[in-house]
């Protein structure tokens, strides 16, 4: 299959380990990965902060860049992020319609139909749950709100994790409760966000996991940022990195703490 990767703006600039792992994993599974280089951002930050007019050109840019990729023979688009795919699938057409651009809305809907979050692509489209990964660590999984309730990925990430050799999956208490990130919410309502984060960190710590994983770098940046401040010794690692890990290549770098160790 020919798959175009959405690096996501956060993944491109700050957390390249997640899109890099996505590329390497898909290539290991025998697929051809392309990177449409003009891509920038899905526009989620603008939409969720209420800047729907400013979001319009950003949405149009995304739809055009990936529309060209489809025209060039790409079968599917993947992003290692539930919230970016959620924005593409549930907000792009809304932004276009609100501005009265029905043509863009339809193009956005067509593109969204073939845009997947990583666990969706693997389980639903490619039909694999055992991706041949090896990751000998005790791991707990935080289902991010947008993958859980916007995309309804359900237990797909857990199916993938259960098939990883050497991985011990431990349950996270109150897993479905938001970690408190919420984009600009974390800054505008920093104290409430921190109170939510405190409970999420308590659950992670009491799970006794070495590693907390999730499908969104943004939420991991939040949880990992808090755990790093506490010097808690628990690492936060994107799901894609665990799935890309093999017995020769363990990607256990923490999203915040181990910046120096991120492999180039």
């Amino acid at each position, binding site marked *: 299959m020919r798959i175009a990767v959405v690096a996501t703006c956060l993944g491109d600039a700050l957390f*390249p380990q997640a899109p890099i792992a996505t590329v390497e994993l898909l290539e290991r599974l025998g697929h051809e990965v392309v*990177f449409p280089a003009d891509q920038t951002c899905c526009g989620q930050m603008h939409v969720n902060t209420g*800047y729907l007019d400013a979001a319009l050109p950003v949405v149009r840019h995304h739809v055009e860049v990936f529309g060209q990729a489809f025209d060039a023979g790409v079968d599917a688009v993947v992003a290692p992020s539930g919230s970016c795919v959620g924005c593409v699938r549930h907000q792009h057409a809304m932004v276009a319609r609100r501005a009265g651009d029905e043509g863009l809305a339809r193009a956005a809907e067509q593109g969204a139909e073939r845009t997947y979050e990583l666990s969706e692509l693997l389980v639903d489209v490619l039909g694999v749950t055992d991706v041949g990964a090896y990751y000998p660590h005790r791991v707990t999984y935080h289902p991010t709100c947008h993958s859980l309730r916007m995309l309804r990925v359900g237990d797909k990430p857990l199916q993938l994790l259960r098939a990883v050799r050497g991985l011990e999956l431990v349950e996270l208490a109150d897993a479905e409760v938001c970690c408190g990130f919420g984009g600009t919410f974390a800054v505008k309502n920093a104290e409430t966000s921190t109170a939510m984060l405190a409970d999420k960190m308590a659950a992670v710590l009491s799970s006794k996991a070495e590693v907390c994983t999730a499908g969104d770098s943004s939420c991991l940046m939040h949880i990992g940022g808090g755990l790093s401040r506490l010097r808690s010794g628990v690492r936060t690692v994107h799901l894609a990195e665990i799935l890309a890990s093999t017995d020769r290549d363990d990607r256990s770098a923490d999203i915040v703490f181990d910046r120096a160790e991120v492999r180039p």
Partner: protein
Amino acid sequence: MTGHGRAAERSRTIELGMPTPASDPHRHLRGTEGFPAAAHRALADTQLRRNLGHATRTIRAKRAGVVAELDDWEELRRAGEAIKADTMARLPELLVQFEERVTARGGVVHWARDAEEANRIVVDLVRGTGADEVVKVKSMATQETGLNEALEAAGVAALETDLAELIVQLSHDRPSHFLVPAIHRNRAEIREIFLREMPDVDPDLTDEPRRLAMAARAHLRKRFLAAKVGISGVNFAVADTGTLSVVESEGNGRMCLTLPDTLITVMGVEKLVPTWSDLEVFLQLLPRSSTGERMNPYTSTWAGVTPGDGPQAFHLVLLDNGRSNVLADAQGRQALHCIRCSACLNVCPVYERTGGHAYGSIYPGPIGAVLSPQLTGIDGPHDVNATLPFASSLCGACFDACPVRIDIPSMLVQQRAAAVDAHTRRTGQDVAMAAAAIAMTTPGRFKLAERALGVGRVLAGRKGRISTLPWPLSGWSNARDLPAPPAETFRQWWARTHGGT
């Protein structure tokens, strides 16, 4: 004028009337400070946090249990959504039909454009009976209008008879939840309030729930028997029969509805359903979503007056107070579908931590965050209600819990857009968002902006993480580290490993 003539005249008025925002004479729809400031104090109150955490966790578990019992829960939710959407699509004609039916069955219908008008109508009606005390069934509509304050100003004492509402009234507090207005109090605090505020209370009162309930009962019973006027709100009103209904747990509401000679009901116009059989759907959805019960203990329904049985005078005040304004917005009108079950409050991680008072309005939680600013309108960039749509991480738990499938997360985004539109001059955030949009549509500039992240590597220094940031980003760095930007962006990695770009 006959009921029909009045109805016909009214229908013309509805069509021609210009909807206006709610009037809020007693500031029940707007707090005095924005959400972040109000939340700051709530978050520091550890007793409040414990009380709320315990109470919402208990109700959530009960609700989840009874919802899981029904294999047609999703169909019920969709039915509730469809009935409400249909009602809103033809609200004016249904209201006219409803007025005709209520009038035909011996009720008197009054129309109130806003809070002041509703209060004036009720005060005049109470004065007309000569009563100086009224008993009240728990009601959001009369809280919205500030009826108790209006009655007090007219020399009439209003006694709240719902146990939790009574606790709020006795402690001169404000309610913080639709269903459990004193959810922020624990039983030790309630005992203190009773000992301090109930004149004839047993001084040996303990905080055992049964003893507390008995004390409240003794306090209320005499007043029920003496009351000449009862005042209620409405859960559901049926257009094709003129029936009203109140759903409750304690039975105190039923006493207010049946014992006094005069019953005055204040009803937000959105409480209507078209037909009697529609109640079948809502009487399943509401108790399971609100108290986590299969059926609530008391469901009272009445229509007009029945000679020799119950109140002999029945007045119905139909309250607009901004609702027509909300109805005019095709997307925003979903907020009027709310049946005030409070499920969205109980599942909201923000509400659970800040409580209801932080929202300022008597409508708290996720639904309050979209309803309050729509009812009042956003009155310029410094309106405290403009902060409410941002009091959410958009986690979506409210939508999943809502028995009538109100898409609160999407409405929050729409209301954020309304708040941004109310900016009268460009804020720092406006400038940053505009600049980001330009960078994000110009790939060359996006790459340049990414390179500027190199500054972050300097900030982070050798420890590889950033622990302090300037305002407003200090909100982040007060509790969380940020990693240093990577040595290589994804784009650079791709160019190095895959060529091109």
